[in-house]
């Protein structure tokens, strides 16, 4: 593993663990919190470590070599397009009455995992493409 990726893991893993812990605490804390402002503050508490996650990502992208950056760009573009158009098509199917509409919060919560999964899956394919001839 190259130094840039070791540094990424060193920065990403603690920030992600803190994020997960804050999500857990935030969800538990919300049960006993009243008032819109207080509930918003508690709900958005996990956003703080996201800044460090994004910082780790930016530093990793800047430290990567040119092919790694290209692979990431292609993966984000293709994965994002698949996720975006997938959601759009899903919305059109709901609009047409073909599918039942889920709760709005479910859709909002699933956007990030779908985009991340799309990026990850496409990155595996792109890495394989550049590795195998």
């Amino acid at each position: 593993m190259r130094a840039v990726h070791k540094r990424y893991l060193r920065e990403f893993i603690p920030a992600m663990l803190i994020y997960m812990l804050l999500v857990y605490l935030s969800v538990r804390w919300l049960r006993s919190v009243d008032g819109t402002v207080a509930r918003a503050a508690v709900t958005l508490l996990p956003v703080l470590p996201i800044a460090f996650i994004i910082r780790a990502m930016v530093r990793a992208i800047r430290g990567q070599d040119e092919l790694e950056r290209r692979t990431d760009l292609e993966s984000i573009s293709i994965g994002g397009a698949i996720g975006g158009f997938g959601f759009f098509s899903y919305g059109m199917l709901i609009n047409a009455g073909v599918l039942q509409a889920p709760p709005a919060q479910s859709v909002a919560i699933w956007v990030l995992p779908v985009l991340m999964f799309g990026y990850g899956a496409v990155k595996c394919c792109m890495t394989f493409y550049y590795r195998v001839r």
Partner: protein
Amino acid sequence: MNNRVRELRTALGWSQADLGEKLDVSRQTVNAVETGKYDPSLPLAFKIAKLFDLSIESIFTPGE
């Protein structure tokens, strides 16, 4: 684009990882360049040429 990177590297007894370390790129990138899957940028091509002490055009040639 065709290139002689693999030939030059093996002549010096270097592994792809060795060359990657000298060029500050990953082993996968060295492999992709050698197999023609990826054409390096001009700065990387210059780096490769400088490392092997050759001109760029003696390492990289236009493909058909």
